[in-house]
Structures are given as C-alpha cells and as structure tokens.
C-alpha cells in the first residue's frame, strides 16, 4: 500500500480546516527564527573582522527577501531581531523573475523590486528569506541573482514552510515548519502586508 | 460555325425566352424555339445581358508577360462576361505607334476570347511632352479610337487641349487619368484621417478634381469628347454633373473597387489594396454609386491591373499600384448596385456594355438582344454567392482585392459573335 503524506492537521483548536499555521503560529515561528539568526550570526561571523563594538555579528547580517512574500517576512524578522537584540539589521529584496528558468513554461510576469542596502552585500552574511520552500528553483534563481549583485561571505536560507519535493540540492538553514505534502496540494501563505491576514493554508488542487 | 439554342434565358431580367444563335448573330427570339443540330444551352432562368465591354484593361503584353498576356487577360475577361476590352497603352514598348497597337490587336484576334481593342498613347512614351501619332493608330488595323496616357496624367494643359482637338478628326476620345502630378508626389493613399495616422503620403481628392475641372472646361471650349478614367471622389461626380448639365461632351467611368472598398483597407499595409487613384472614403463610395445610378457616371471600367507577386509582396510604398478586376467586376456591380436596388438589369447592360461600347465607338458591341444583332451575350446566375479565391482566377496574376470576400453572381456562359467562350462557368479555350 502506497503511503501518501498525511494531510496537515489543524495546529490549534478553532481554526479552519486546512489551516497549517494561524496568525499566532506565524508570529511564534518568526520569533523563533529571529532568535536562531541572532545565535548563528555570531558563530558564522566569528573570527572575521566585525566592526568595533559589534560582538553579535549582526551588523554583518543582511536579510534579503524574495518577493512577493519573502519581502515582508524579511522585514518582520529584522523587526524581531531588533526587538530582541536592540540591533538594526539591514534588509533588502531581490526579484528573481529575470533569473527564472521557467519563463518559457509559465510566461512572463510583472517584475518586483530589487533593493539592497547601501553598502551592498560584499563579504556579508546574506540570509535569503522566502515563504515556501518547494522545488528549490526559486532559491537557485535567487542565488544566481546574488552572484550578479556581489560576493557575500556566505549565504543562508530561511523559510516559513518547507513542504518537500526538492528538485535541486538545496536545503534551508532556518525552517518555520516542515510540512509533508503531496504534489497535488497547494501551500498558501497569507501575510497581513500582502493579504490582510497572517495564516498558512494547505488546499487540495493543482500545484501552481 | 456552331448553332446555339439558349433555352429559357431572361434578357435584361425580363421573361424567359429561347434565343437562337446562328452565324454569329441572334437569329430568333421566342418561346419554345427548336433547331435541328443546334447545341442546346439550358439557361433555366439565367439573366441574359449583352456582352460586357471594358474601357480600361491592362493586359501587360508586350513587356510584362509574367504578369499577364493578351491571352490570359482575354480569358479572365471572358470569364467575367466581357466580349470586348480596351487594352491600355502603358506596355513596354508603349502602345504609341501603329506597330504596337496592331501587334496587340492581332494577339487579341489570335486568342479569340474577346475583342481586344487597343488604346493608343496620347503622348510619345507616355512622357506628356509631345503627341504620339494618333492618326496613324486610328488608321491602323486596330482602328484606335480611345487614346490615353493612363497611369500618367496629361498634365500639361496646352498639350491636353491639342490632344482633345486633334482626335476630333477621327471621332476619337481622350481618356484622361486625372491626377495633378505636383499634388501627388510620393502619394500612397487617399489623404485624410487614415493617411495621417498610417504615415502614408496622402493623395488628395483635389488632385483628381482639379484636373477634371480643367479638362471639362477645355473639352467645352474646343468642342471635343473627353472621357475620364476611374473617377474616385464625390467632388469629381459633382463636377461631372455640372459639366453634363452644360452639355459638355464628357463621359466617365468608375472602377468596381472604388464602388466597394474604402481607404480602411490600407490599415493592413497590404499593397494588394494599393491602387491609383487610391481607395477613398465611405462618402465617396456613396457619391460614386449615386452617380453611376443616375448616369452621371456612364460606365464601369475595371482598371484590371495585374502585377507579379514580387511587385505586390513588399512594403506598401515599394509596391506597384493596381488590382485585378475583370473576373469580379460584374459581381461587385451586383453587390453594390443591383442588390441594393440602385440599378436594374437594363441599367447594368447600359453601364457595362451599351455606353462603354458607344464611348469606344464599337459598332458590334453593346447592342440590344434582338434578332439580327451580333450574338455577343453573357448568361449569368445572379443569386449564387461564392468566396473569391485568387488561386482559381484565370488571370496570370493574383492581386485580387476581393480575396476571401464573398460576392454574388456567377457568369455561366459568354458568347462572342455566337462562339461560346465560356460554358458552365469555364473557359472553352
């Protein structure tokens, strides 16, 4: 008997069927990743020339969101890091549309912003931030884009949801929630900034 | 010679009768005619008209036999219901001598599908500088009566006056291509809203009307006959109406395409719609139809202008002007004049046979359908509608502006002096 991934269960009582994360869950997950970033920033940048007075290594950190929803996630992470550590970290966005390998399959689409901190990303710890990690192709496109934008010291990946089905040797360094899904399911991340509400849903249907 | 018994045809749309054709003439008309040995043509209610006469055909031979020959053009004409066509002079060499017009005339006789009546050039080489030997062409075997520099305007007013006067000696007529050349330098299409938007140099209506106005005054002054080729504007119709009311001996033709198509066709930039004079506006079309209906415009002239593919499959500005017309002329007249009730079948016979024959001084064409008259006849089925397929045309060229368009009317049979040139809608030779 073939095993199919179990449908995701409702995480908290009272939420709608198919809800993977509620608004409160999203906030908790972002807090956790923010803490992990603070810890890791120190170790990743240890031994490198950090600016005087920065023992945390956080001044080296740049959170780069992948639009659409990676961008607000990056900003929220930065806000939480600042709340926990008192240090303002740089935030940027990198639009990957012009680097995608599926334009011919899926057609052209409107571009979104690419904004980097004034100092650029050379020699810094870049953490790419996205909502869902699936095939890994978006991350690959983002890595290609970063290569044209500068030479970071290292690049890491933070995602809200990892739903599996990787098609490339890519993994996330920070994961909000691992969710086994079937390919036919859709994982939808809604954020207040873009959708008016924080939640993550799993629905049946053709993957987009 | 074959004797034909046409059963049940309706002359000019009247009652069905039988028509007996013998020795090139109509021998008898009546009910239930019989003739032993006659080839019977079941007309079954088809309309019978006198064979059509075109005042304005480009046959391209000699010179551009890749676009059309006298023979292929004659076949196209017969299939269109014509029994006589006037072959324009802008060949290579130009038909400006007795030798060239006789050559064209002879080629027409050899083809034997329609009477090919050569038009002589007004000026040597169509250059508009000095008169060609008009008298020699008139006296030649081709018996030229219509003279035209068509494709070019005889723009020099003094030269035009002399031409009008000179041809009176042999009852000739000058057919003017009315286009003031200084106003149409580089012109590509009708000058108006569309030319402004499409960025194609405009061909103003005034460039036609100015020459027509001048020439009717000249014709009046010298008491000569003037024919106007392809009038295309409402203003031209107005001037003609005025001139005729003064008794000026002026006649005019309109092309099928100017009765049907507008400058909107240029929006495709497909040069199949490039023609000189250009396609005009809806208002012009309306004036032309009204003018043809009331007789201000005397005739339909096809301005059949075959062009080789390479002269049309190009940029608009590089393409040569002109479009095919012989095989669809009658259909377009049915569509634009008969079906809307503006012309009855007698009117069609008048504008497409009787008057053009008179203008060209062709005694054996444009005659009544009556015993003793030459058996130049066309039988047509006006109700059948068909989509025009350029590949199916008899012309050697394919530049039909009606490609893909559904038009009414089918020529079933054409008789030239009693000989069937078309039977069952197919050329017999």
């Amino acid at each position, binding site marked *: 008997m073939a095993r199919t991934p179990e449908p995701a269960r409702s995480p908290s009582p009272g939420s709608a069927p198919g809800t993977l994360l509620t608004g409160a869950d999203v906030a908790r997950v972002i807090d956790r990743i923010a803490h992990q970033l603070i810890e890791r920033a120190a170790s990743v940048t240890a031994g490198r020339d950090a600016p005087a007075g920065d023992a945390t290594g956080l001044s080296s950190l740049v959170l780069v969101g992948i639009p659409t929803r990676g961008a607000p996630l990056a900003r929220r992470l930065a806000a939480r890091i600042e709340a926990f550590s008192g240090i303002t970290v740089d935030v940027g966005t990198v*639009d990957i549309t*012009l*680097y995608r390998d599926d*334009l*011919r*399959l*899926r*057609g*052209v689409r*409107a*571009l*979104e*912003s*690419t*904004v980097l901190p004034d100092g*650029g990303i050379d020699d810094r710890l870049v953490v790419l931030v996205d909502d869902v990690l699936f095939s890994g192709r978006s991350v690959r496109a983002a890595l*290609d884009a970063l290569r*044209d*934008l500068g030479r970071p010291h290292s690049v890491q990946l933070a995602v809200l949801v990892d739903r599996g089905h990787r098609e490339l040797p890519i993994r996330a360094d920070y994961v909000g929630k691992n969710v086994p899904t079937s390919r036919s399911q859709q994982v939808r991340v809604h954020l207040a900034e873009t959708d008016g509400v924080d939640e993550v849903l799993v629905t049946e249907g053709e993957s987009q | 010679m074959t004797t034909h018994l046409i059963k049940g045809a309706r002359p000019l749309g009247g009652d069905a009768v039988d028509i007996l054709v013998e020795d090139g003439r109509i021998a008898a008309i009546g009910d239930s005619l019989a003739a032993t040995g006659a080839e019977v043509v079941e007309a079954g209610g088809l309309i019978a008209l006198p064979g059509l006469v075109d005042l304005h055909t480009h046959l391209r031979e000699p010179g551009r036999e890749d676009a059309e020959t006298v023979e292929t053009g004659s076949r196209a004409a017969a299939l269109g219901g014509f029994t006589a066509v006037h072959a324009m002079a802008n060949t290579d060499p130009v038909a400006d001598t007795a030798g060239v017009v006789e050559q064209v005339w002879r080629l027409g006789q050899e083809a034997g599908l329609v009477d090919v009546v050569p038009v002589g050039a007004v000026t040597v080489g169509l250059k508009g500088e000095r008169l060609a030997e008009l008298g020699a062409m008139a006296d030649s075997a081709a018996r030229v009566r219509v003279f035209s520099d068509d494709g070019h305007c005889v723009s020099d007013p003094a030269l035009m006056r002399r031409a009008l006067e000179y041809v009176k000696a042999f009852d000739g007529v000058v057919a003017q291509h009315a286009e003031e050349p200084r106003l149409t330098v580089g012109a*590509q299409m009708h*000058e*108006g*809203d*569309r*030319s*402004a*938007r*499409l*960025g*194609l*140099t*405009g061909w*103003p209506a005034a460039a036609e009307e100015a020459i027509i106005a001048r020439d009717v005054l000249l014709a009046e002054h010298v008491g000569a006959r003037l024919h106007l080729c392809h009038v295309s504007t409402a203003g031209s119709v107005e001037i003609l109406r005025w001139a005729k009311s003064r008794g000026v001996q002026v006649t005019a033709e309109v092309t099928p395409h100017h009765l049907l198509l507008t400058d909107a066709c240029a929006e*495709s*930039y*497909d040069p199949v719609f490039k023609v000189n004079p250009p396609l005009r506006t809806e208002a012009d079309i309306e004036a032309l139809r009204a003018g043809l209906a009331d007789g201000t415009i005397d005739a339909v002239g096809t301005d059949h202008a075959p062009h080789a593919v*390479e002269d049309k*499959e*190009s*940029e*608009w*500005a*590089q393409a040569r002007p002109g479009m095919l017309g012989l095989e669809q002329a009658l259909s377009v007249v049915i569509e634009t004049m008969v079906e809307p009730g503006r012309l009855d079948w007698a009117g069609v016979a008048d504008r497409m046979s009787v008057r053009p024959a008179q203008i060209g001084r062709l005694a054996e064409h444009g005659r009544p359908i009556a015993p003793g008259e030459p058996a130049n006849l066309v039988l047509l089925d006006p109700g059948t509608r068909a989509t025009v397929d350029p590949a199916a045309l008899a012309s050697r060229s394919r530049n039909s502006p009606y490609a893909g368009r559904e038009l009414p009317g089918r020529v079933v049979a054409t008789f030239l002096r009693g000989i069937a040139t078309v039977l069952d809608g197919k050329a017999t030779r």
Partner: protein
Amino acid sequence: MKRHLLEAADLDRDDATLVLDTAAQIEQALAGREVKKLPTLRGRTVVNLFYEDSTRTRISFELAAKRLSADVINFSAKGSSVSKGESLKDTALTLEAMGADGVVVRHSASGAPHRLANWVRGSVVNAGDGTHEHPTQALLDAYTIRHRLGRLDGVRVTIVGDVLHSRVARSNVVLLQTLGAEVTLVAPPTLLPVGVGSWPAEVGYDLDAVLPKSDVVMMLRVQGERMNASFFPSAREYSRRYGLDARRMAALPDDAIVMHPGPMNRGMEIAAEVADSVRSTIVEQVANGVSVRMAVLYLLLGGAAQ
C-alpha cells in the same frame, strides 16, 4: 500583451503601464551593479534589421538585448543582401530560417514592420517605420516624463515641429493619450497632416500661447531641406516662430521639462542653452531608452515561444 509591438495602439493602458513599471524595476535591479547583465533571454536570438541608418536606436536595442543575454545579430542594409535588391519578404524568410525569436526593424517605408509580422513567427518590434510610428521612443518618452514629474495622468504635453513627417509624434500622441496625458500639437499648418483633427490631441499654431500651460515641451527635429519644398520659408523664420530659446523656456511653468528625441538641430528647433539646461531631459531619454527596450524585449520574448 500582443505578440508584436508595431504601433503604440498595440498597447492598452495596462500593457503600457506594465512596460514602464518593468523598465523601472529593471533599472533599479541594475543600478550600481558591476555585472549589468541578466540571464533572462539566454539562448534567444534578436535580429536588428536596420534598413535606415540609425546608430543611436540600433545601439540602444543592441545593448538592451545583450543586457538580457540574448544573442544579437545586426543586419543592416549596407553591405548585405538587402542592398543587392533582396526583397523584405525574402529577408524575412531568411531570418525565419535562422530562428530569430525577435526582429527589431527600422525601415523607411511606413508599415514595413506590419508586413514583416505576417512573414515571421518571432516577435516584431518596430524601431521606426517611415513617417508612421516609433513606439519604443514614445515609451521611453513616457517613462522619462513619469520619472521626472511623477505621473502621466493629466500631464500637459506640447509637441512642437514637423508633426507631418514625424513617427515620434504619431506614437507619442497615441501612447500619451492612452496613459492619460493631454497632448497639444504646435506646428506651422504645412507640417501638420490633413486629418490631424481626428487625433486625440489639441492643435495650435502659436507656441507662445501654449508654453505657459505646458508641463512638458517635446521639440521635434526639423530637417532644413523641408524649406525647399515650401513647408516654411526659411530656417530663420521657422526658428523665430517655432524654435525653443531661453526667452520662450522662461515662459514655462517652474517644473516643466524640455524633451527632444534627437538628433537635435541646435539653433534650429532648439537653442543650445535650452538643450543644455537643467530642464532638458535629452541625455536621460537616451539612458531610459535602454531600460524601456529591455522591458519590451523581456515582455515580448521572455515567455513561452508562440
């Protein structure tokens, strides 16, 4: 978006806005980068088919295509089979056989790109056809106006000069109207086409009357040889009545800008001090041309082959 960009009317307001937004994002993505290149059109072939000399437009398209990693082939009339009399159709079939994904065509005959579009499978971009249109010029002009003034809706644009022979004017009238700007044409009546009344633009003959109500003045190039055909009596009279000099520029509202599609006739339609003033966007227009053309190529060629 339609498959081809043949004239400004091929773009509705959403399409035109998408092109401008995309150009802005591309400009932002490339700003300050060392590697000014994107992999987007890798493996795609763009042919620059130029039947008319126009170094600046050809270079702009070439740079745009190369920055998107397309393979670019320049096919100019000089020294090619084109000058040996090969027809446009035969050239089109050759390009088709070579597998061109996009053909950027410049031609002296109005409508040549429309003809080409019937004969090739790739996308055709009109880079100027006769006296018809030059849609990417209008797009870069609209982009420049939006960039400088922050909007297009309700912006009052005055286009001055040889409208009759100007493909730039035709494209701008259509595109700016699509984008909500108000266009006024000013020229001697001889240099306005019969039928201009049907255009979505005001028409006037008095430049001084219009300038105080203009947010943008776009000066068109006027060729001196026009006066030989009696379009105007002399260069001096043209310049006096329709040229933009410092005195006239002073009549403009404070934040109004001066545009010119180039190449300029300094001293004829535009005075040097105006061309070089802070109001002038002439250099910006050139730079913006590359971003806008990248956007057009991306939107036409980036997606699925058709």
